[in-house]
């Protein structure tokens, strides 16, 4: 797909081009929004706000960069704003200054399956969830995260370590549960 041509047509406000751009990125971006929120409703709200921003600011997109990354960045920023403003999230969206929390398990042996992992991430407290997404998935450094959220780098590291530890525990439990279920099913069948 020729993104530059698509962007030019969107800038000329051709409805078909706008729809094409939306269709091309909507599913992936809903996946991004889903990880930052706690319900599909909220995720779709973020997606909607994000695409409105994208179409309004498309003139700022420089063709040198990758369009997907630019859209993703806008979507993440929109999600963070949503968390800050929304009444169901903003009271949880506060970070206390904490000391560095060491990462306990560097290479845990756990099964990671996309949807399952996403649902576990969404069960984390909002602060943990956000920092985990920003660092582990989007690849932002703790310095960048600190600037984005207005917190110390150390706080970001600490929150991330806690989130990671919690997630690994849950993944391990899930593994055990699935093993038990598998064994139970196996014995039943026999």
């Amino acid at each position, binding site marked *: 797909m020729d993104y530059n041509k698509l962007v030019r047509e969107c800038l000329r406000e051709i409805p078909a081009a706008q729809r094409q751009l939306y269709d091309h990125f909507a599913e992936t971006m*809903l*996946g991004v929004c889903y990880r930052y929120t706690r319900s599909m*409703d909220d995720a*779709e709200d973020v997606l909607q706000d994000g695409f409105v921003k994208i179409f*309004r600011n498309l003139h700022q997109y420089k063709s040198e960069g990758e369009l997907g990354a630019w859209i993703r960045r806008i979507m993440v920023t929109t999600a963070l704003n949503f968390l800050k403003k929304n*009444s169901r999230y903003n009271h949880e969206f506060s970070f206390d200054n904490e000391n560095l929390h060491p990462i306990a398990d560097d*290479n845990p042996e756990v099964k990671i399956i996309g949807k399952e992992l996403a649902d576990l991430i969404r069960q984390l407290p909002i602060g943990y969830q956000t920092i985990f997404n920003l660092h*582990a998935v989007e690849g932002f450094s703790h310095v960048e995260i600190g600037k984005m959220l207005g917190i110390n780098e150390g706080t970001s590291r600490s929150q991330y370590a806690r989130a990671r530890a919690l997630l690994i525990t849950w993944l391990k439990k899930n593994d055990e549960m699935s093993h038990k279920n598998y064994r139970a099913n196996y014995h039943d069948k026999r």
Partner: protein
Amino acid sequence: MPENEFEKKVSSEMQQLKFKPSEKVWLRVEERIRKKKKRRVFIIIFLLAGLALLGYWQRNNLFGEKKNEIIKTEQQKENNTKTSEQANTSATIKQNTETTKQEEINTTNDKTVNDKLTDDRSVIDKKDIAVSKNKIDKPKDKIKDEIKVKPASQKIKAEDEPVVSIDVVSPNSQKKNAANEIKNKDTLDVKTNPETIVKQDEVKQPEVKPLDNKIDSAKAEVIEQEKIVTEKTDTLLKTEPTKELSTSIVKKDSSSKKWKWGLHLTPGISSLNDNISFGGLKSADAFNYQSSVGSGTGATAPRQRPSDVKPGFAFQAGVFAQRHLSPRTSLSLGLQYGFYSQRLGIGNSRDSLLDNSLLSNVADADGHIYNAGGDTIRYTNRYHFIELPLRFQWELNKSKTKPFVWSTGFTVGQLIASNAIMYDTAFNGIYYKNKSLLNKTQFSLSTGFSWTIANGKRAQWSLGPVANIHLNRLIDSPFENKRYLFFAGIRTSILFNKKK
């Protein structure tokens, strides 16, 4: 960057995470993109209207200045013509007076001239003062009419309009005439007599001869006085009218550009809209804004629709100061209190939710929580604002007493109090208070018409419709679809005239 394998695995799994969004999302995105355009067009129209008015005012101002210049030039021309005419007339007067003097001298007996001179001088002095006053107060055209020089042969008439008349009269009749003329101060009737000579200027006051002076000396004085009268008349025509008129024009302009102050009261109705159209909020719009997959808490129970918001009573009241920019345009600045409200039907109270961690930190401590949907409670959202309106007025007709005015303006407002409740999809749809979601500083555009109903000496009373549309959102919640405040009302204002 991810520290190790775990992060890499997570990242790769999450990058591939995809969900198909519902069709409503695109519809809403498309709708919002188009709406922004509409709002932009509306703002551009207002700006263009403002610019057009500014241009018109500027053009009017320039034209006004040219007009004044033209008037002044015309005045000068007229004065010059008048002066030359006057010079001719005074020459004729001299001749006539010379002739009549000789006739009178012959008929005059040995009566003393000085007594009469003194009497007549005092009378004419008074008249002279009256003439000066009259000229200052009257416009140029009247002065032109008034300063007429009658030929010497013409008889004096008591009912004549102000006239500079140099005529020959007998001492007795002159006394009578002089007395009549003092009574009528508007008349300008200067008479000369061979025996009783008019003194026109105190600086050039002629010397009064002693009693034993004979006719010869009186004759000589008559000639001298005639010269003075002629000079004075010329001077009056040459200089005074122009100066006085130009002063009066300047005075008129400066008085019309002074600040006047007034009061206004504007009762009306207000509503919340998502565009410039006026009307109640349709519940379906706000409901469709959120897809109905589940509630905000993840539950699958059907969500309650937000209630229809109906327009409520509103009013603005305050003071303003107004100043004319040109004869037909004016600017006003004010300070006002604005009250706006909307009515909505809501369900039963759910105050137990205040203890819920999701809402306890958000909803106002003294607030209540209500179920969305239903019509158990009639709730009124009230907003109290302090506003600073700036209005530009343009008189559409040419009537000075009862102008028909179109006004447009910009207002900055600060929300000082509100009891507004907002919709949220949480708990299957609730209403609750959250002041942090209200945009406290509001900017709005206004437009309206007004007719002057009564225009008295002390005040001017106007009446007409006005409308305000707010440019920024009043409610900054993702669940509230229609968030722009709209106000329409009938403005009644009193503008006080300054005491002169």
